[in-house]
């Protein structure tokens, strides 16, 4: 088993309460599946959309990230899967895909020396 990070990028906002509830339900179902199959290591955390960018020691700290809303990382989840392909396959169930967002699947580097 290896570990992977799902980075959630983009996805629309501005749902009606009823739609929010449905989206919520889909995420819960997806997490439930991931949990049942033993692939969910940690549900992770959402990230605030704003932040700061620090580029060098002496220069100014700027507001950021500057990425467009569609590229912005909104949160992450820690996944366990036998392979990158499998982790990517599992990400296809993510409800963000129905809302013009995407999941970036990144293997966490193994430290078995």
């Amino acid at each position, binding site marked *: 088993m290896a570990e992977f990070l799902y980075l959630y990028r983009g996805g629309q*906002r*501005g*749902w*009606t*309460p*009823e*739609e*929010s*509830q449905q*989206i*919520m339900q889909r*995420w*819960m179902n997806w*997490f439930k599946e991931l949990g049942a199959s033993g692939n969910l290591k940690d*549900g*992770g*955390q*959402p990230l605030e959309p704003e932040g700061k960018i620090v580029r060098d020691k002496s220069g100014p700290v700027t507001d950021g990230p500057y990425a467009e809303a569609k590229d912005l990382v*909104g*949160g992450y*989840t820690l996944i366990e899967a036998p392979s990158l392909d499998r982790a990517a396959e599992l990400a296809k169930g993510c*409800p963000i895909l129905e809302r013009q967002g995407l999941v970036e699947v990144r293997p966490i580097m193994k430290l078995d020396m």
Partner: protein
Amino acid sequence: MEPSDHLFRHEAGRMVAALTRVFGLHNLELAEDVVQDAFCRALEVWKLRGIPENPSAWLTTTAKRRAIDVLRRERTARTFAPEYGRLLQTEWTLANAVQEVFDWTDVRDDRLRMMFSCCCVDQPEAAQVMLVLSLVGGFGVREIAAAFVSSLTAVEKRLNRAKHTLKDSGPLFDIADADDFAARLPSVQRALYLIFSEGYHGASAQAAVRADLCYEAIRLTRLLANHRLAATPSTHALLALMYLDAARLPSRLDASGNLTSLFDQDRSRWNGRMIEEGREWLERSATGQQMSRYHVEAAIADVHSRAPNVDETDWCAIVALYDTLMTIDPSPIVALNRAIAIAQRDGPAKGLAAIEAIGEPKRLDAYPFYHAARGELELRRGDPVAARAHFEAAMSLARNSEERRFYSRRVRQSCVTLSGVGG
């Protein structure tokens, strides 16, 4: 109907109503923005972390914090609700004031205040209905558009116009004033009745959309029934009528998803618990001097609910009730329903005669059920040619594919009967 199924929507109505009390009706959008923001945060956090144990409290806390930020930031630029004006000037009283508006005991009154504010005579009835759905029911523009089979932009435009009128209408309605309250109550009841009717008879092809409207109307009418001044016999009768009619919702579509008329419904699928509830409210409504149209309509629904089938229905009672309804609130549609009941009691020829006798039949021309009823009675009387023409007229007026399918089946039935008669 699980309340948690619509947690977000119900919380939205509750929070907008509470925030408007401290922000003032003229800052309605600000209250809506704060609520929208709280929901966005909830969605972001909950989808990864799961729904917290007490989601209402979570949402309330988030909205409260955001409201305090907004009040702090905007207190020099805007005026808020005058009765809170002084409290909002110092930090300590500001947080307390916000805390206070979310106190659970006041919330029911907040929603009533909002509901009564929405149902002002300055607003056309359709606008009142949209406002109640949007602000108290937590329905989004997309959901309202789906319910009324209207375009998104059309609903958005009407709703914005209605909100402007509402914002300019002064402070929130004062529900403590018993005279004003009694004067406004019929409009509120009427708006809730229209929401229910849209769900029950409405044009949307999606059964789920329509059931949602019915249940929402029931939920909001229950708010009235639980308030000292609003719990009048007519409110109880309205609630009775909603429960008794909504009990039939599960049987309106048959196993293959076809629309089924009251005459052909599988009555074992009627919701017995809702019928019971409806009867309890009907019993409670039977006090006072005044008989409202809701009393009569509930009584009609009750007669149907007691009959094991169409033939064993007490049509004499139903005709008598429609006679009463014609004296309280006459309309061509009531007259049409009365004629259908007469046909059941005295045969199709008498029913057709009663339809002929309806004043202003032009007002029924665009109403598919009018043509369908005439078709049914002609068919029963043995005139399939006339029946077919009426069903075709109904079909051309059908508002969705289910209705169209329903009438086209009746057209075919007329043709079958016709060839049977012709040999």
